[in-house]
């Protein structure tokens, strides 16, 4: 796409949308939102970048290798946090009893392992969105 208006508007919008997505992920345990919604917003901005600036530039920003790492890394991160609970407190995915810091309720540093899990889910969902789109676009090229 070679439209200067679309390109410039995209350049302005993408940082704000990505910051909003990160905000939703990190505030998932305080305000509405969470890993799934925030990850979907970040994935949408990556899709928008690929749509406007073309497949080659999009590949440079988020390559196939990076999506592989993010895909498997999200699940490995989740299972690792679960295994901490299994080792320390005898149950998979234990939260406060496994020694995760409690924090003060209502502040961003609270909720034990919930923010950590949300970060893992967010990375996973964002990379799922962009890789599904890339696979559909690349098919038969």
């Amino acid at each position, binding site marked *: 796409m070679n439209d200067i208006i679309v390109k410039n508007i995209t350049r302005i919008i993408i940082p704000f949308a990505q910051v909003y997505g990160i905000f*939703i992920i990190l505030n998932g345990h305080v305000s*509405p*939102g*969470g890993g*799934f*919604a925030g990850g*979907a*917003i970040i*994935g*949408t901005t990556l*899709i928008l970048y690929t*749509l406007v600036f073309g497949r080659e530039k999009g590949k440079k920003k988020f390559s196939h290798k990076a999506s592989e790492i993010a895909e498997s890394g999200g699940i490995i991160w989740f299972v690792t946090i679960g295994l901490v609970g299994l080792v320390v407190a005898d149950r998979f995915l234990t939260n406060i009893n496994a020694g995760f810091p409690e924090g003060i309720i209502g502040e961003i540093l609270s909720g034990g392992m919930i923010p950590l899990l949300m970060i893992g889910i967010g990375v996973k969902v964002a990379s799922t*969105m962009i890789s*599904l*789109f890339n696979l*559909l*676009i690349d*098919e*038969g090229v």
Partner: protein
Amino acid sequence: MVILNIVIVVFLIVCALAIGRIKDLLGAVILFSAYSLMMSVLWLVLKTPDVAITEAAIGAGVTSILFFAVISKTKRYEK
């Protein structure tokens, strides 16, 4: 509030019927996107902001883009 609910639900029903009737698949995807956007407003009215955010991002954003990608690989008009 009841009137707002009724307006949204009527819009949703009209959208859903139109998606079934229309022959142009691109138009069907755009109608589906409008359906999802109105559905997210309805979730907000029903006091579930979590689902509203997810519906707006996934239903109106990602799903329609994936459908567009599939349509660009196949035919635009239904036979």
